[in-house]
């Protein structure tokens, strides 16, 4: 998949996140975004997801411009799957209903089709036994797996994951990372924001550093970690690999 950002500017209130960001990248399976806190990773992901509009500039995904009107943006969002750090699921709906909701209301599947499709995805992530539970009755790892199932069930063109494991303890993190690693080879391109440096190195085709309102480095995973070209990357890696 191909992403190209041209002269993207984005600020919140008075705070400028990107002044004029240019970034072109092409990858097959997984692009990992890493970088210091507050560097703009989530902002970049939200721009790609069509959840935020840039103040200026244009974003193309596989050559198609992300529209800037609300209904065009909605159409864009319907074509992709997004998973945030936490609270993805709707607490008043069961796991099954959470997956069915977009299938029925957005993608207009019949109740029967939606039900069987949702169950198929729950089964795939070993969650069928938990279909009738509400999010509060699920573990953190199960919740994130349901969220991933919901994102995948609509057959998106690609997946955007924003630190899907950072609110989890190590064991649950492993369980969710296993799922993501398995997705990698199977189907949709994934753009993943992560603090799990080891996982990024292991799974990603490309790793990009988002820092100081720019993307100073983007290279294949082994290169990124073994021979970082940029001083910012070296400083970042030193800091995160210190312990």
């Amino acid at each position, binding site marked *: 998949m191909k992403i190209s950002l041209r002269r993207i500017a984005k600020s919140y209130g008075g705070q400028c996140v990107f002044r004029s960001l240019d970034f072109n990248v092409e990858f097959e399976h997984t692009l990992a975004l890493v970088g210091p806190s507050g560097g703009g990773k989530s902002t970049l992901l939200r721009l790609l*997801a069509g959840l935020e509009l840039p103040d200026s500039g244009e974003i193309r995904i596989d050559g198609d411009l992300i529209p800037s009107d609300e209904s065009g943006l*909605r159409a864009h969002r319907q074509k992709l799957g997004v998973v*945030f750090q936490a609270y993805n699921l709707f607490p008043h709906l069961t796991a099954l209903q959470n997956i069915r909701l977009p299938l029925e209301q*957005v993608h207009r599947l019949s109740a029967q089709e939606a039900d069987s499709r949702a169950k198929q995805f729950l089964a795939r992530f070993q969650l069928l036994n938990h279909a009738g539970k*509400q999010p*509060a009755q699920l573990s953190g790892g199960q919740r994130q797996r349901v969220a991933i199932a919901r994102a995948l069930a609509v057959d998106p063109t690609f997946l955007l994951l924003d630190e899907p494991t950072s609110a989890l303890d190590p064991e649950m993190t492993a369980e969710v990372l296993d799922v993501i690693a398995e997705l990698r080879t199977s189907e949709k391109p994934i753009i993943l924001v992560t603090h799990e440096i080891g996982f990024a190195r292991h799974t990603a085709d490309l790793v990009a550093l988002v820092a100081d309102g720019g993307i100073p480095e983007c290279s294949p995973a082994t290169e990124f970690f073994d021979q970082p070209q940029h001083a910012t990357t070296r400083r970042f890696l030193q800091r995160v690999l210190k312990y």
Partner: protein
Amino acid sequence: MTADFLFDRPRKPAGLFGKSFSIALLLAGYSALCWLAFSESLRNWEKVWSYRETFWNGWLTTVQISAAALVLSSLIGGATALARRSNFLPLRYTAIAYVETVRGLPLMVLVLFGFYGVANALGWQDRVSAGIVILSLFSGAYIAEMIRSGIESVGRSQWDSARAIGLTPTQTYRFVVFPQVLRQILPPLAGQFSSLIKDSSLLYIIGIPELTFAANQVNSATYSTFESFVPLGICYLLLTLPVSLWTKRLEKKTRYET
């Protein structure tokens, strides 16, 4: 230490016997006290009994008015809460002005002004429907605030998730926001219903034949104040106690779920 079973301590909670014994003791004690003090004024039951029809009709009117006002005030409350969140300033300000004005006025003033002022000027003669509308406008302002705080308590991540899966704003309200708001405001809404039942007694000043009006009528006709007003109190309790018990259960339930 002889009456240890009458205490409910954290270390040693009271048993069923202690609780029921206390209740029985108090019932007997307070009844005896009332009897000693008021027995002179509590002998006219036959006369009042002959007016049971009046009581019954008053009670029915009260129930009907409260139920109608609950439905209408929920609609008003919902619409006002949405208007308060509107991007269109005139609409938002209208909602704010309505809520703040109504919440700042005593119900009595609203009833008098609404009926003798506004309804009269409009040529609206039907007291019951006018009473229902006034009561609904009063209660609607409070319900609007409940709904608004309910909507605001739905976190940003919920709106984000709804947008991310491609729901329209209308769908987001319908499938994501309102179900959560409803679950959250059900206990205070039930409490509001109980308030409505009690507040409807004020409609007696504009001559609606509801429960309080009926009791007052019986009192004037029989000169038996206690025998008229004791049943009045009991009739209200019969309506409000179940609602308040139900509210408590709802509160417990929502607490466990979240």
